[in-house]
Protein backbone atom coordinates (compact mmCIF):
# COMPACT_ATOMS: atom_id res chain seq x y z
CA UNK A 1 0.00 0.00 0.00
CA UNK A 2 1.63 3.24 -1.20
CA UNK A 3 -0.56 5.39 1.04
CA UNK A 4 0.06 3.37 4.17
CA UNK A 5 1.93 6.12 5.99
CA UNK A 6 -0.92 8.54 5.34
CA UNK A 7 -3.50 5.89 6.33
CA UNK A 8 -1.75 5.29 9.66
CA UNK A 9 -1.46 9.01 10.25
CA UNK A 10 -5.19 9.60 9.67
CA UNK A 11 -6.06 6.50 11.67
CA UNK A 12 -4.09 7.41 14.79
CA UNK A 13 -4.90 11.12 14.63
CA UNK A 14 -8.66 10.78 14.14
CA UNK A 15 -8.98 8.18 16.89
CA UNK A 16 -6.48 10.00 19.14
CA UNK A 17 -4.51 6.79 19.55
CA UNK A 18 -1.02 7.11 20.96
CA UNK A 19 1.30 6.04 18.14
CA UNK A 20 3.18 3.89 20.65
CA UNK A 21 -0.04 1.95 21.33
CA UNK A 22 -0.85 1.50 17.64
CA UNK A 23 -0.23 -1.80 15.87
CA UNK A 24 -1.59 -3.08 12.58
CA UNK A 25 -3.58 -5.86 14.26
CA UNK A 26 -5.90 -3.34 15.90
CA UNK A 27 -9.63 -4.09 15.60
CA UNK A 28 -12.82 -2.11 16.26
CA UNK A 29 -13.40 -1.76 20.02
CA UNK A 30 -9.88 -3.02 20.89
CA UNK A 31 -9.13 0.35 22.46
CA UNK A 32 -11.64 2.73 24.08
CA UNK A 33 -10.86 5.38 21.47
CA UNK A 34 -12.15 3.19 18.63
CA UNK A 35 -15.76 3.04 19.74
CA UNK A 36 -18.81 3.64 17.56
CA UNK A 37 -18.53 7.42 17.62
CA UNK A 38 -14.76 7.29 17.05
CA UNK A 39 -15.50 5.03 14.09
CA UNK A 40 -17.67 7.66 12.44
CA UNK A 41 -15.00 10.31 13.00
CA UNK A 42 -12.41 7.97 11.45
CA UNK A 43 -14.62 7.44 8.38
CA UNK A 44 -15.10 11.18 8.03
CA UNK A 45 -11.35 11.85 8.23
CA UNK A 46 -10.55 9.08 5.71
CA UNK A 47 -13.09 10.52 3.28
CA UNK A 48 -11.54 13.96 3.68
CA UNK A 49 -7.94 12.75 3.57
CA UNK A 50 -8.32 10.60 0.45
CA UNK A 51 -11.13 12.58 -1.19
CA UNK A 52 -13.46 9.58 -1.39
CA UNK A 53 -17.01 8.78 -0.33
CA UNK A 54 -17.26 5.49 1.54
CA UNK A 55 -20.46 3.42 1.09
CA UNK A 56 -22.53 2.54 4.16
CA UNK A 57 -21.88 -1.20 3.75
CA UNK A 58 -18.15 -0.57 3.73
CA UNK A 59 -18.35 1.60 6.84
CA UNK A 60 -20.11 -1.23 8.62
CA UNK A 61 -17.55 -3.78 7.42
CA UNK A 62 -14.56 -1.61 8.34
CA UNK A 63 -13.85 -3.72 11.42
CA UNK A 64 -10.06 -3.60 11.65
CA UNK A 65 -7.04 -1.67 10.42
CA UNK A 66 -6.24 -4.48 7.98
CA UNK A 67 -9.82 -4.74 6.72
CA UNK A 68 -9.58 -1.00 6.15
CA UNK A 69 -6.69 -1.51 3.73
CA UNK A 70 -8.84 -3.92 1.67
CA UNK A 71 -11.79 -1.55 1.70
CA UNK A 72 -9.72 1.49 0.73
CA UNK A 73 -8.41 -0.43 -2.29
CA UNK A 74 -11.98 -0.48 -3.62
CA UNK A 75 -11.78 3.31 -3.69
CA UNK A 76 -8.45 3.23 -5.52
CA UNK A 77 -6.52 4.17 -2.40
CA UNK A 78 -3.59 1.86 -2.77
Amino acid at each position, binding site marked *: MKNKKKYIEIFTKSLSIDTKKFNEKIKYNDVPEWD*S*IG*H*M*TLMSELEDGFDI*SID*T*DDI*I*EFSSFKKGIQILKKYKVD
Partner: protein
Amino acid sequence: MNIEKNIKLWSSLGMRATFGLIAMELSKKYPDLMITTSDVSTSAGLDRYKNKYPEKFVDVGIAEQNLIGISAGLSSEGFKVISTTFAPFQTLRCCEQIKVNLGYMKNKICMVGLASGLVLGNLGFTHCCIEDIGVLRSIPNISIVVPSDPLELFKVLSGAINYKDSVYIRLTAGSNTRIVNSKDYKFEIGKAIEILPGKDVAIIGCGNILGECLEAASILKEKKIQCSIVNMHTIKPIDKEKIKNIAKNNKLIVTVEEHNVIGGLGTSVAEVMSSDRNNCKLVRLGINDFYSSGGSYEYLKNIYGLSVEKIIQTVLSNL
Protein backbone atom coordinates in the same frame (compact mmCIF):
# COMPACT_ATOMS: atom_id res chain seq x y z
CA MET B 1 -27.46 -2.02 1.48
CA ASN B 2 -27.17 -5.64 2.54
CA ILE B 3 -28.97 -5.34 5.86
CA GLU B 4 -29.29 -8.99 6.87
CA LYS B 5 -25.65 -9.78 6.16
CA ASN B 6 -24.52 -6.99 8.43
CA ILE B 7 -26.97 -7.17 11.34
CA LYS B 8 -24.23 -8.07 13.86
CA LEU B 9 -22.05 -5.23 12.66
CA TRP B 10 -24.93 -2.73 12.76
CA SER B 11 -25.50 -3.78 16.33
CA SER B 12 -21.84 -3.26 17.25
CA LEU B 13 -22.09 0.32 15.97
CA GLY B 14 -24.90 1.22 18.34
CA MET B 15 -27.74 3.65 17.86
CA ARG B 16 -25.89 6.96 17.62
CA ALA B 17 -23.35 5.95 14.99
CA THR B 18 -26.11 4.20 13.06
CA PHE B 19 -28.07 7.44 13.11
CA GLY B 20 -25.12 9.18 11.42
CA LEU B 21 -25.01 6.49 8.75
CA ILE B 22 -28.72 6.67 8.08
CA ALA B 23 -28.55 10.45 7.78
CA MET B 24 -26.14 10.03 4.88
CA GLU B 25 -28.45 7.51 3.21
CA LEU B 26 -31.51 9.74 3.66
CA SER B 27 -29.71 12.75 2.26
CA LYS B 28 -29.20 10.88 -1.02
CA LYS B 29 -32.92 10.20 -1.23
CA TYR B 30 -34.20 13.56 0.02
CA PRO B 31 -32.36 16.62 -1.33
CA ASP B 32 -34.54 18.83 0.87
CA LEU B 33 -33.38 17.20 4.11
CA MET B 34 -31.96 19.50 6.80
CA ILE B 35 -30.36 18.29 10.01
CA THR B 36 -30.23 20.58 13.01
CA THR B 37 -28.28 20.00 16.22
CA SER B 38 -27.26 21.57 19.48
CA ASP B 39 -23.51 21.04 19.45
CA VAL B 40 -23.56 17.28 18.97
CA SER B 41 -22.31 16.52 15.46
CA THR B 42 -19.61 14.12 16.66
CA SER B 43 -21.71 12.55 19.43
CA ALA B 44 -24.51 11.89 16.93
CA GLY B 45 -22.16 10.34 14.37
CA LEU B 46 -22.87 13.28 12.06
CA ASP B 47 -19.32 14.44 11.24
CA ARG B 48 -19.53 12.97 7.74
CA TYR B 49 -22.88 14.60 7.10
CA LYS B 50 -21.62 17.96 8.35
CA ASN B 51 -18.55 17.79 6.11
CA LYS B 52 -20.41 16.63 3.02
CA TYR B 53 -23.49 18.83 3.33
CA PRO B 54 -22.46 21.96 5.28
CA GLU B 55 -25.34 23.89 3.71
CA LYS B 56 -27.85 21.33 5.00
CA PHE B 57 -26.51 21.18 8.54
CA VAL B 58 -27.38 23.78 11.17
CA ASP B 59 -25.66 23.71 14.55
CA VAL B 60 -27.47 26.19 16.77
CA GLY B 61 -25.08 25.69 19.69
CA ILE B 62 -26.24 24.79 23.17
CA ALA B 63 -29.56 26.57 22.72
CA GLU B 64 -32.19 23.86 22.47
CA GLN B 65 -35.20 26.17 22.46
CA ASN B 66 -33.72 27.74 19.33
CA LEU B 67 -33.13 24.25 17.93
CA ILE B 68 -36.88 23.65 17.89
CA GLY B 69 -37.73 27.18 16.72
CA ILE B 70 -35.29 27.05 13.79
CA SER B 71 -36.28 23.50 12.88
CA ALA B 72 -39.97 24.44 12.87
CA GLY B 73 -39.18 27.47 10.70
CA LEU B 74 -37.33 25.30 8.17
CA SER B 75 -40.23 22.86 8.18
CA SER B 76 -42.70 25.67 7.49
CA GLU B 77 -40.58 26.54 4.42
CA GLY B 78 -41.00 23.02 3.06
CA PHE B 79 -37.82 21.27 4.25
CA LYS B 80 -37.76 17.83 5.77
CA VAL B 81 -36.09 18.37 9.14
CA ILE B 82 -34.37 16.08 11.63
CA SER B 83 -33.29 17.72 14.89
CA THR B 84 -31.03 15.98 17.34
CA THR B 85 -29.29 16.31 20.66
CA PHE B 86 -29.15 14.33 23.89
CA ALA B 87 -32.62 13.23 24.95
CA PRO B 88 -33.15 15.38 28.07
CA PHE B 89 -32.20 18.52 26.15
CA GLN B 90 -34.12 17.51 23.01
CA THR B 91 -37.32 17.15 25.05
CA LEU B 92 -37.60 18.64 28.52
CA ARG B 93 -35.44 21.73 27.98
CA CYS B 94 -37.53 22.89 25.02
CA CYS B 95 -40.91 21.54 26.04
CA GLU B 96 -42.84 24.76 25.42
CA GLN B 97 -41.34 25.19 21.93
CA ILE B 98 -42.32 21.60 21.13
CA LYS B 99 -45.85 22.22 22.38
CA VAL B 100 -46.34 25.47 20.46
CA ASN B 101 -44.32 24.97 17.26
CA LEU B 102 -44.93 21.27 16.68
CA GLY B 103 -48.04 20.34 18.64
CA TYR B 104 -50.14 23.47 18.25
CA MET B 105 -48.83 24.91 14.96
CA LYS B 106 -48.28 21.43 13.47
CA ASN B 107 -44.88 22.12 11.96
CA LYS B 108 -43.54 18.66 11.27
CA ILE B 109 -40.03 17.62 12.32
CA CYS B 110 -38.35 14.39 13.42
CA MET B 111 -36.69 14.81 16.79
CA VAL B 112 -34.01 12.26 17.61
CA GLY B 113 -33.29 12.03 21.34
CA LEU B 114 -29.80 10.58 21.78
CA ALA B 115 -28.86 8.30 24.68
CA SER B 116 -32.22 8.34 26.43
CA GLY B 117 -32.97 6.22 29.48
CA LEU B 118 -30.08 5.39 31.78
CA VAL B 119 -27.11 4.91 29.47
CA LEU B 120 -25.44 8.20 30.43
CA GLY B 121 -25.76 7.41 34.12
CA ASN B 122 -22.09 8.06 34.74
CA LEU B 123 -22.85 11.75 34.11
CA GLY B 124 -25.67 11.73 36.65
CA PHE B 125 -29.41 12.17 36.24
CA THR B 126 -28.99 15.52 34.49
CA HIS B 127 -28.06 13.42 31.45
CA CYS B 128 -30.38 10.46 32.03
CA CYS B 129 -33.86 10.72 30.60
CA ILE B 130 -36.69 8.81 32.21
CA GLU B 131 -39.46 11.37 31.63
CA ASP B 132 -39.43 12.11 27.89
CA ILE B 133 -42.19 9.72 26.83
CA GLY B 134 -44.49 10.79 29.64
CA VAL B 135 -44.09 14.49 28.90
CA LEU B 136 -44.34 14.33 25.10
CA ARG B 137 -47.19 11.83 25.12
CA SER B 138 -49.47 14.54 26.50
CA ILE B 139 -48.82 16.90 23.57
CA PRO B 140 -51.15 16.40 20.58
CA ASN B 141 -49.80 15.86 17.04
CA ILE B 142 -46.54 14.22 18.13
CA SER B 143 -45.84 10.52 17.70
CA ILE B 144 -43.31 8.63 19.81
CA VAL B 145 -41.22 5.72 18.59
CA VAL B 146 -38.57 3.77 20.49
CA PRO B 147 -36.42 1.62 18.20
CA SER B 148 -35.19 -1.63 19.70
CA ASP B 149 -31.85 -1.85 17.89
CA PRO B 150 -29.87 -0.16 15.12
CA LEU B 151 -31.63 -2.16 12.41
CA GLU B 152 -34.99 -0.92 13.65
CA LEU B 153 -33.67 2.64 13.88
CA PHE B 154 -32.96 2.45 10.16
CA LYS B 155 -36.59 1.49 9.55
CA VAL B 156 -37.99 4.05 12.01
CA LEU B 157 -36.15 7.01 10.49
CA SER B 158 -37.07 5.97 6.98
CA GLY B 159 -40.73 5.80 8.07
CA ALA B 160 -40.71 8.93 10.23
CA ILE B 161 -39.37 11.25 7.56
CA ASN B 162 -42.61 10.89 5.60
CA TYR B 163 -44.99 10.35 8.52
CA LYS B 164 -47.97 12.67 8.86
CA ASP B 165 -47.00 14.05 12.31
CA SER B 166 -43.84 15.14 14.07
CA VAL B 167 -42.10 12.09 15.50
CA TYR B 168 -39.93 11.82 18.58
CA ILE B 169 -37.44 8.98 18.12
CA ARG B 170 -36.04 7.84 21.43
CA LEU B 171 -32.64 6.13 21.24
CA THR B 172 -31.58 3.88 24.10
CA ALA B 173 -28.40 1.93 24.96
CA GLY B 174 -24.79 2.62 24.01
CA SER B 175 -22.57 0.96 21.43
CA ASN B 176 -22.58 -2.83 21.20
CA THR B 177 -26.34 -2.96 21.56
CA ARG B 178 -28.11 -6.26 22.01
CA ILE B 179 -29.49 -7.69 18.78
CA VAL B 180 -33.27 -7.76 19.06
CA ASN B 181 -34.11 -8.30 15.39
CA SER B 182 -31.95 -11.02 13.92
CA LYS B 183 -33.39 -10.87 10.43
CA ASP B 184 -35.05 -8.32 8.20
CA TYR B 185 -38.78 -7.67 8.76
CA LYS B 186 -41.64 -5.35 7.84
CA PHE B 187 -41.92 -2.24 10.01
CA GLU B 188 -44.77 0.25 10.25
CA ILE B 189 -45.16 3.09 12.77
CA GLY B 190 -48.04 2.18 15.10
CA LYS B 191 -47.97 -1.57 14.45
CA ALA B 192 -46.47 -3.66 17.26
CA ILE B 193 -44.50 -6.79 16.40
CA GLU B 194 -44.55 -10.14 18.17
CA ILE B 195 -40.88 -11.12 18.04
CA LEU B 196 -41.29 -14.33 20.04
CA PRO B 197 -44.47 -16.41 20.27
CA GLY B 198 -45.54 -17.92 23.61
CA LYS B 199 -48.68 -18.86 25.50
CA ASP B 200 -48.06 -18.45 29.25
CA VAL B 201 -47.20 -14.78 29.68
CA ALA B 202 -46.79 -11.77 27.40
CA ILE B 203 -43.84 -9.43 27.88
CA ILE B 204 -44.30 -6.09 26.14
CA GLY B 205 -41.23 -3.88 25.83
CA CYS B 206 -39.70 -1.07 23.85
CA GLY B 207 -36.13 -0.04 23.12
CA ASN B 208 -33.00 -2.09 23.54
CA ILE B 209 -34.20 -3.44 26.92
CA LEU B 210 -36.07 -5.95 24.72
CA GLY B 211 -32.71 -7.72 24.53
CA GLU B 212 -32.94 -8.43 28.27
CA CYS B 213 -36.56 -9.57 27.77
CA LEU B 214 -35.49 -12.07 25.10
CA GLU B 215 -32.78 -13.45 27.36
CA ALA B 216 -35.25 -13.76 30.24
CA ALA B 217 -37.71 -15.60 27.95
CA SER B 218 -35.01 -18.01 26.93
CA ILE B 219 -34.23 -18.86 30.59
CA LEU B 220 -37.95 -19.12 31.44
CA LYS B 221 -38.40 -21.54 28.56
CA GLU B 222 -36.03 -23.93 30.34
CA LYS B 223 -38.44 -23.74 33.30
CA LYS B 224 -41.30 -24.71 30.91
CA ILE B 225 -42.75 -21.19 30.83
CA GLN B 226 -43.37 -19.89 27.35
CA CYS B 227 -43.26 -16.11 27.06
CA SER B 228 -44.35 -14.16 24.07
CA ILE B 229 -42.32 -11.01 23.50
CA VAL B 230 -43.96 -8.02 21.85
CA ASN B 231 -41.95 -5.10 20.51
CA MET B 232 -44.22 -2.11 21.16
CA HIS B 233 -41.89 0.27 19.33
CA THR B 234 -44.55 2.95 18.90
CA ILE B 235 -45.84 4.39 22.15
CA LYS B 236 -48.01 6.95 20.39
CA PRO B 237 -50.18 6.12 18.55
CA ILE B 238 -50.23 2.89 20.58
CA ASP B 239 -51.35 -0.31 18.87
CA LYS B 240 -54.66 -0.70 20.75
CA GLU B 241 -55.85 -3.73 18.83
CA LYS B 242 -52.66 -5.63 19.58
CA ILE B 243 -52.91 -4.84 23.31
CA LYS B 244 -56.58 -5.84 23.45
CA ASN B 245 -55.74 -9.07 21.70
CA ILE B 246 -52.83 -9.84 24.04
CA ALA B 247 -55.00 -9.08 27.09
CA LYS B 248 -57.72 -11.37 25.76
CA ASN B 249 -55.34 -14.29 25.28
CA ASN B 250 -53.10 -14.02 28.35
CA LYS B 251 -53.52 -14.03 32.14
CA LEU B 252 -50.42 -11.95 32.71
CA ILE B 253 -48.78 -9.06 30.87
CA VAL B 254 -45.44 -7.64 32.02
CA THR B 255 -44.35 -4.34 30.50
CA VAL B 256 -40.65 -3.50 30.56
CA GLU B 257 -39.29 -0.04 29.84
CA GLU B 258 -36.23 2.12 30.51
CA HIS B 259 -38.47 4.98 31.64
CA ASN B 260 -40.41 6.05 34.68
CA VAL B 261 -43.30 3.63 35.27
CA ILE B 262 -45.50 6.74 35.28
CA GLY B 263 -46.40 8.04 31.84
CA GLY B 264 -44.56 5.63 29.57
CA LEU B 265 -45.19 2.28 27.91
CA GLY B 266 -46.75 0.59 30.96
CA THR B 267 -49.13 3.49 31.48
CA SER B 268 -50.12 3.43 27.81
CA VAL B 269 -50.85 -0.30 27.97
CA ALA B 270 -52.83 0.18 31.20
CA GLU B 271 -54.95 2.91 29.60
CA VAL B 272 -55.93 0.59 26.76
CA MET B 273 -56.57 -2.40 29.03
CA SER B 274 -58.71 -0.40 31.46
CA SER B 275 -61.10 0.61 28.69
CA ASP B 276 -61.72 -2.96 27.59
CA ARG B 277 -63.18 -6.09 29.17
CA ASN B 278 -60.43 -8.54 30.06
CA ASN B 279 -59.25 -10.82 32.81
CA CYS B 280 -55.57 -10.12 32.55
CA LYS B 281 -53.17 -8.89 35.22
CA LEU B 282 -50.70 -6.15 34.29
CA VAL B 283 -47.31 -5.72 36.01
CA ARG B 284 -45.21 -2.69 35.01
CA LEU B 285 -41.43 -2.86 35.26
CA GLY B 286 -39.49 0.36 34.91
CA ILE B 287 -37.96 3.13 36.97
CA ASN B 288 -40.13 3.30 40.03
CA ASP B 289 -40.53 7.09 40.22
CA PHE B 290 -37.33 8.02 42.02
CA TYR B 291 -33.93 9.47 41.15
CA SER B 292 -30.89 7.61 42.38
CA SER B 293 -27.27 8.73 42.41
CA GLY B 294 -25.45 8.32 39.11
CA GLY B 295 -23.63 5.19 38.04
CA SER B 296 -22.79 2.92 35.13
CA TYR B 297 -25.52 1.73 32.79
CA GLU B 298 -25.44 -1.84 34.09
CA TYR B 299 -25.42 -0.63 37.71
CA LEU B 300 -28.47 1.58 37.17
CA LYS B 301 -30.40 -1.09 35.28
CA ASN B 302 -29.78 -3.42 38.20
CA ILE B 303 -30.91 -1.03 40.92
CA TYR B 304 -34.05 -0.15 38.94
CA GLY B 305 -34.95 -3.81 38.47
CA LEU B 306 -34.39 -3.86 34.73
CA SER B 307 -32.08 -6.86 34.75
CA VAL B 308 -32.75 -10.27 33.21
CA GLU B 309 -33.00 -11.76 36.71
CA LYS B 310 -35.62 -9.24 37.82
CA ILE B 311 -37.73 -9.84 34.73
CA ILE B 312 -37.62 -13.58 35.41
CA GLN B 313 -38.44 -13.06 39.09
CA THR B 314 -41.38 -10.80 38.20
CA VAL B 315 -42.85 -13.36 35.82
CA LEU B 316 -42.43 -16.22 38.29
CA SER B 317 -43.93 -14.34 41.22
CA ASN B 318 -46.99 -13.18 39.25
CA LEU B 319 -47.96 -16.24 37.24
